[in-house]
């Protein structure tokens, strides 16, 4: 078959006029209508995203400024979101410190070791199950496990562990995909040189999978950053205090560096402001915070793409 036999993508497949006798006018009309409708659905996605971005750009105009990002909330004036933004970043780092190593190691097992047996099946079933459990239920699990039974109270660590539970399947699956994408020949070559399986994984497979692994980390980070339902009842939804960043006492309940303190994140703060509905500047603060969240999501997404592409290019060139 020659290449010309396949029509260019995006072109309607109506037969040439000379052949049209067999295809009724009605079916050609239906084809045209369907093509227009399918284009419309695709463009709907773009228009919707575009309008959301424009909406928040307009709503956040005059709200988001360096002082909004860097000052404490205030009852009388617009104030800022510094403590909750700090908490979001803090929770992100704390969660990723746990989730990334465990997820990548789990991905290594699933990609390099896992035999085709019932145990592997059970791991896959667990992976799918956690992914489908509602985030609020994972939050409740954190509540009963850490806050109530372990008597930690609402702490950043409880929230980070609950977030890890929720995102571990995603991280593991993305790591597994990245590792599986490494060609089998690389492994064979390394093994043929006498390297052990672990040496092969450590010095050949993982380095080659780094672009994919980093993309996976960034995508997981994007999801961790915006999550709120998991955190409502684990890291708490209290009013964020003023943080004294020179307090490095990691056991102190007021130090911004301590994992054993309540930590209201940016997303939880939006929820809190909305449900309490107080304050003259509520709408501006929420619009501004939402704009910050959306910008971070865009940043994480574009970052994942950009870093992944850059690393792939650099590594394949060398």
């Amino acid at each position: 078959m020659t290449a010309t036999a396949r029509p260019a993508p995006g072109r309607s497949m109506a037969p040439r006029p000379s052949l049209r006798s067999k295809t009724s006018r009605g079916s050609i009309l239906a084809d045209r209508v369907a093509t227009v409708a399918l284009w419309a659905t695709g463009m709907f996605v773009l228009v919707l995203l575009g309008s959301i971005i424009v909406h928040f750009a307009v709503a956040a105009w005059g709200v988001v400024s360096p002082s909004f990002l860097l000052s404490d909330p205030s009852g009388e004036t617009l104030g800022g979101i510094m403590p909750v933004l700090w908490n979001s970043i803090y929770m992100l780092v704390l969660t990723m410190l746990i989730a990334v190593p465990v997820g990548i190691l789990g991905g290594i097992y699933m990609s390099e070791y896992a035999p085709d047996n019932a145990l592997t099946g059970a791991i896959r079933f667990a992976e799918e199950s956690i992914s489908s459990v509602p985030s609020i239920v994972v939050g409740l699990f954190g509540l009963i496990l850490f806050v109530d039974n372990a008597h930690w109270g609402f702490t950043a660590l409880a929230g980070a562990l609950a977030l890890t539970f929720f995102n571990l399947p995603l991280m593991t699956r993305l790591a597994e995909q990245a590792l599986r994408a490494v060609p089998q020949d690389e492994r064979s070559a390394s093994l043929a040189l006498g390297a052990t399986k672990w040496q092969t994984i450590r010095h050949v497979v993982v380095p080659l999978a780094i672009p994919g692994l980093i993309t996976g980390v960034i995508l997981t980070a994007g999801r961790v950053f915006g999550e709120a339902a998991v955190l409502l009842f684990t890291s708490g939804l209290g009013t964020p205090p003023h943080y004294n960043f020179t307090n490095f006492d990691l056991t102190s309940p007021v130090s911004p560096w301590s994992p054993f303190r309540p930590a209201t994140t940016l997303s939880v703060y939006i929820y809190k402001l909305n449900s309490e509905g107080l304050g003259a500047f509520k709408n501006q603060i929420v619009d501004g915070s939402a704009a910050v969240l959306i910008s971070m999501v865009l940043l994480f997404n574009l970052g994942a793409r950009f870093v992944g592409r850059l690393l792939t290019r650099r590594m394949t060139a060398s």
Partner: protein
Amino acid sequence: MAQLTNAFEATGLRAKPGLMERIDLPRRVVFLAAASMIAIVALLLAFIFWQGIQLFVKDGQPIGAIFDSTWNPLADTPEFGILPFILGTLVVTAGALLISTPLSVGVALFLSEVAPNWAKSVVQPALEIFVGIPSVVWGWLGITVLVPWLSDTFPNKIAISMPLVGQVFSMPGFLTGFSWLAGSLVLSIMVLPTITSVSYDAFRAVPQELRTGSLALGTTRWQTIRHLLIPSALSGVLTAVVLGMTRAAGEALAVQMVIGNSPTLPAAITQPVTTLTSQITLDMGNTVFGEPWQDALWTMSLVLLIISVSSVVLVRLINKRRIGQ
């Protein structure tokens, strides 16, 4: 194979595995990391199950009482009928899927069959950004844009009359805009990327030869989609819808923010309703550990868990049938 290994050992080409190699620590460590997910699921099921049955075990509520339609936790003899929440979750989710399924399958077909490369390379990243937008942001958009629009546009009774027959359909207008429809609309956008990407994979998995074969018979592209692609990818599309349903039923904050949270049985799409997730979100912070009210919330989360685990099983059944065919 065994002979080969023996030969190697005889010639000394292959050293006997040392102690470290036989213990194979790395293998054990990576196994533990992967198996931790089994532990998490087991613990989660155990804890939520245990908390979820306290309402019957400790507080002595009959199991049947939860299917009552009265929710009144503060009365002298409190009533914990969670039927309004279960039905609310079902109808809001059903509404979301009714809106989202045609749209998402349309986007999936567009990406897989129609879109030129440039369109694919913008629509796919756009969908990924949709996935990343936090649910509180969707909820806030719902409150500031959708809810006011609904209440401004349809404030009055909506009625359809036919000549001779008279009025065939009527429902009250939006009082505030916080409603079943608002919840379903917000959810329909939130599940769009899920349903789209899973059905897209299903359409891509249909072999190219089938398409060319069908087109060579003189069919139009739409006929090929309708009579070939959709039937062949049906189980994949079904999987997509089930996954979308799971996500919609479990979504908490965005829904809570726009559905009005009225613990009554769903009456009309213009009226406030409530769902399992939104009631848990609202009440959990107001209750004390161990009191019947909170136990009822745990029972509701057990119901949510049962919904989500059965959907995993359902997806597996759908896909097993496909492999079996």
